[in-house]
């Protein structure tokens, strides 16, 4: 394919054009027919997102055996639901395209925030990528599971995974506590509004997301004063060291926040970050934890 040093200029030019065309071609189209599914079942896979680390594991042993790399966050308890599950033989790669190229994966799952240069480099060298974009709640989770399963040739396992997710959600949605209580999430001044996984989690657990009611979409930095003035009944924060209980106590004593209903009435709830920020099955754990702490379930004061 490459031209030799002695090739005549015209042949060299043609080779360069062919190379350029090859470089400009996008990733292979998603398989649709059963033949293509069979091809997909033979492909090696690499994951560069924490969600695909999780989904590829959940799709079962047949898929796991073909995974040649997972993301460097796969063992990070702050984000990952599959800590220490992937065998040590599967390398944890931090998005370095050179190391990924050396593994020659049949498909690499990357995120929309993976650097464009790294994605283009993988594509140009025949290592097609699938970009997971949008991590805004339950619907995106279902879509990503479907895409990953299809590209891994495990559509049935993917459907089963989504059904299990929806079944657990349906079970949790039964007897949702009423009335819906207002809550906000808070981390370093950033709150979650509509179109976030937290928004879906909050609604499924029987809460109202106050940030969404104030027309906030996505994650946004707001002033402490504004949040305090909303006087939420529940404030959800990430657990920090040394424990979730200590985080709740420390937050409830913060200047300004200590006067809110949440701080006065035990409504500061610290969730493990891998649940609070999950865009995968950790969302179910977050719904479960929030439902368990719903203010309507507190025993009335004597």
């Amino acid at each position, binding site marked *: 394919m490459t031209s030799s040093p002695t090739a005549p200029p015209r042949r060299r030019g043609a080779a360069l054009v062919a190379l350029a065309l090859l470089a400009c071609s996008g990733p292979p189209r998603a398989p649709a027919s059963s033949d293509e599914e069979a091809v997909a079942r033979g492909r090696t896979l690499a994951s560069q997102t924490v969600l695909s680390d999780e989904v590829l594991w959940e799709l079962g042993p047949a898929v796991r055996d073909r995974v040649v790399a997972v993301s460097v966050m796969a063992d990070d308890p702050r984000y990952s639901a599959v800590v220490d599950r992937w065998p040590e033989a599967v390398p944890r790669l931090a998005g370095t395209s050179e190391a990924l190229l050396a593994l020659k994966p049949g498909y690499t799952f990357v995120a929309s925030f993976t650097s464009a240069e790294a994605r283009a480099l993988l594509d140009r060298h025949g290592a097609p990528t699938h970009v997971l974009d949008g991590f805004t709640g339950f619907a995106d989770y279902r879509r990503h599971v479907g895409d990953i399963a299809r590209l891994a040739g495990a559509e049935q396992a993917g459907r089963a995974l989504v059904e299990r997710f929806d079944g657990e959600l349906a079970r949790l949605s039964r007897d949702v506590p009423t009335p819906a209580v207002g809550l906000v999430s808070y981390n370093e001044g950033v709150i979650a509004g509509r179109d976030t996984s937290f928004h879906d989690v909050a609604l499924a657990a029987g809460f109202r997301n106050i940030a969404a009611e104030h027309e906030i979409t996505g994650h946004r930095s707001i002033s*402490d*004063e504004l949040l305090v003035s909303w006087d939420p009944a529940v404030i959800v924060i990430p657990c920090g060291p040394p424990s979730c209980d200590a985080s709740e106590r420390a937050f409830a004593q913060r200047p300004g926040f200590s006067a809110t209903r949440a701080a006065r009435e035990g409504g500061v709830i610290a969730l493990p*970050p891998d649940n609070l920020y999950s865009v995968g099955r950790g969302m179910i754990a977050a719904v479960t934890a929030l439902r368990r702490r719903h203010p309507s379930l507190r025993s009335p004061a004597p």
Partner: protein
Amino acid sequence: MIASHHAARARHPALGTLLALSLLAALALAVVVGPGGVAPRDALQLIARRLVGAGPPTDPDVALVDAIVWSLRLPRALLAALVGAALGVAGALTQGLFRNPMAEPGVLGVSSGAAVAAVLGFSLGLDALGLWVTPALSAVGAIGILLALLALAGTRHGIATLLLAGVALAALCSALTTLMLALASERWDLGLKVVRWLMGSFEGRSWDHLAGALAPAALGLLAGAWLRRDLDTLQLGADTARSLGVRLERVQLLTILSAAILVGTSTAVAGVIGFVGLIVPHVVRMLAGPGHRRLLPLSGLLGASLVVLVDTGSRAFGDRSLPPGVITSLLGAPFFLWILRRHGRRLDHLDR
């Protein structure tokens, strides 16, 4: 030249009064403006009530308003004033020491040292141990860089060595900060914390922050004021100053210490607030002349007013929280260019 300095001196008492009143007005504005929707009259009444010794209200609704005004707005405004004053005076001291109007406190590397220690704390998760941890680590970082600066350039070497050592240490600290961020690039929560801190903010600052900053800032301000005569003499040149009895090494050391304490304290409690230390002394020099007896207190007053107004402005528009450090740079850079264009020749003359 002499006539203009006399005119500036004559304006000084009125200018001092005007700037002091401006600061009071800015502080009053800061406690009545904010996204919390508290009526200005209620805010002032609550503060008056607290000032006469009343405790927190028992009614939960009033307690919430009290928390917004007394626990969030007032300490934040006072801290902004302290930080602005510290940066303004630190700027005047640094420009006086280096006899260079382009010098700003950052050239000593102290704020970069404070930043690298704070980022290290964030990386190790130490900030979760308490609100005091990040300011304490920043203070340690600032002191560490100051000691390194003194060890490298001390008083045995000239001003140029000091300046270059400060620039090199600042570059080293910036590189270390970037390295820590690069090594943890997949930790988005760490990136969020670091970026927010590096942008400078008074969000969530409390009476504890103010109490922690008050003593070192006062020490730095007093030490700066004590140096005013020697800094004036230093403007005549090192040899002349020495012949007039100025102990150059001692002045150099004390000026560095004062500026470093002021900048280190500011960075520790509010992160990096840019441009105040550069622009405020310039404005004061144009209004009141180059003498440090006037320059230092007036830079403190103007710096305090400026930072309080910027922080109030950052809270006044919409529900987004804007970092004041970004606003000071956005306002300061064009203003500085305007001053250079309008008064460049006069500044050259003053700095000679």
